[in-house]
């Protein structure tokens, strides 16, 4: 249920909740995958984002997000200069991502030898939907601490993963299950949590035989 605080707010950088604030929140989600500014970033803009790139400040909003700035930081308007100061290399490209929301961006961030890829859509009023994290299809709001797991599609996989989370006293808000391929027995789960996930819990999850890959993302 919507809060009146979302009706009379939020405090944000203009001019557009979907093309500025939403874009910034998707980039902030990508920033949270490393938790520190990346060495380089590529933004692939789909649909309306290609048109609002300058006129709605989508470009500066995306750069501000990847610098880790707060969504109402007045310095968003000079985010390009701040990225230069932080030594972040950035590039923008147009792309056709197919049948996705018109306001969608694919972000690839690199740091040393590792990289992450996020695809997210800005769905209105500053709300976002992350539809892919490191190639795992999902539907995430970014409002909760989020755990993304690719796992073996075998009996008991879900139970063993959930048990590690629950025995560490962390409450689960929502779980999304997805079978990626029945033949190769690969599934994914996106778990939104009520509390932040300590890093040792993430490490225990990664050590499970059924877990092929696990990533944790802080809320935006």
């Amino acid at each position, binding site marked *: *249920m*919507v*809060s*009146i*605080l979302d*009706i*009379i*707010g*939020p*405090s*944000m*950088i*203009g*001019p*557009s*909740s979907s093309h*500025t*604030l939403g874009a910034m929140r998707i980039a902030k989600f990508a920033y949270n995958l490393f938790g520190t500014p990346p060495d380089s970033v590529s933004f692939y*803009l789909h649909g309306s984002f*290609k*048109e*609002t*790139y*300058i*006129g*709605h*400040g989508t470009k*500066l909003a995306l750069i501000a997000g990847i610098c880790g700035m707060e969504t*109402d*930081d*007045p310095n*968003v*308007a000079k985010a390009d200069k701040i990225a230069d100061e932080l030594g972040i290399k950035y590039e*923008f*490209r*147009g*792309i*056709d991502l197919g049948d996705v929301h018109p306001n969608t961006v694919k972000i690839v961030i690199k740091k040393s030898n590792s990289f992450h890829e996020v695809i997210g859509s800005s769905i*209105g*009023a*500053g709300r976002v939907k992350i539809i892919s994290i490191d190639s795992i299809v999902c539907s995430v709001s970014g409002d909760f601490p989020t755990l993304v797991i690719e796992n073996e599609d075998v009996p008991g996989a879900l139970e063993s993963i959930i048990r590690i989370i629950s025995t560490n006293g962390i409450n689960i808000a929502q779980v999304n299950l997805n079978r990626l391929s029945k033949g190769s027995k690969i599934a994914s789960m996106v778990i939104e949590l009520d509390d932040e996930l300590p890093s040792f819990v993430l490490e225990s999850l990664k050590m499970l035989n059924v877990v092929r890959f696990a990533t944790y993302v802080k809320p935006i």
Partner: protein
Amino acid sequence: MNVKSLKDLIDICEKTGETLHKVIMDWEMLDTGYSNDYIIEKTSKLLSVMEEEYASKKGKEFKTLIGLTGSNGKKMLEYLPKAYVGENVFKAATIAVTMSESNASMGRIVACPTAGSSGVMPGVLLTLEESGIERDKLVLALIVAGGIGKIISMRASLSGAEAGCQAEIGSATAMAAGGAVYAMGGSPQAVSHAAALSLKSLMGLVCDPVGGFVEVPCVKRNAAGATLALLFADIAMAGVESVIPFDEVVDAMMAVGRSMPEALRETGKGGIAISPTARRIMKNLKDKLSIPEDN
């Protein structure tokens, strides 16, 4: 507490003798779990952002993203002492335009309820504050405005892309008018009448921004919204009632929005957006604004 209309909220006020802002906060607690204190604290912070931003932007010129506006707030502030419509009304319009130009230049704003309509509420609230109404009352007025906006979001829409500008500037104006009545000490019924009267007066307003950008006509429509909100707050305080109740006006607004062609819903493909002058402006800007295709 199954609230579906502004009437439901007012009925609770009348049955329990509780104030409107308190009923709205209790409704909020049931929906979101936020305590009354938390709502008051957060709302006060949103008002602070409006106050701080206007204080730092007052009388300034802006370099907006598209460059079609940016110096109107400054011109209006200089003209203010001569304003024929009177100081309060012109001040509200001046603040609304200034905040809206700040929005168009990537300034910090409060999306109340949207970024495109973010000048209306500060225009009204800061004018009331300068005229001597206590800040605490303005925080409660903003909570009441939030309740009005939430009813609109539940029954209709706050999005120009869905229902035209009537859903953005129209909703902002209804919220500000209701809030202003509350700050002036009006009854919950008077709040409802001010919101209904102002929304009716903007019924059918299309969303036709030049190039799809939040500058023309959005910036100056914020002036219209703030002005109308104060006007209808006064009209409601005078005892004038809306023949059609607020909730029915909201439903009518949504029905009008649904029957609006897509060209008139934030696509930049209808209304003034396709006037010869708008086409000429966009032709000149086209190369500057978009990103080259590269798959």
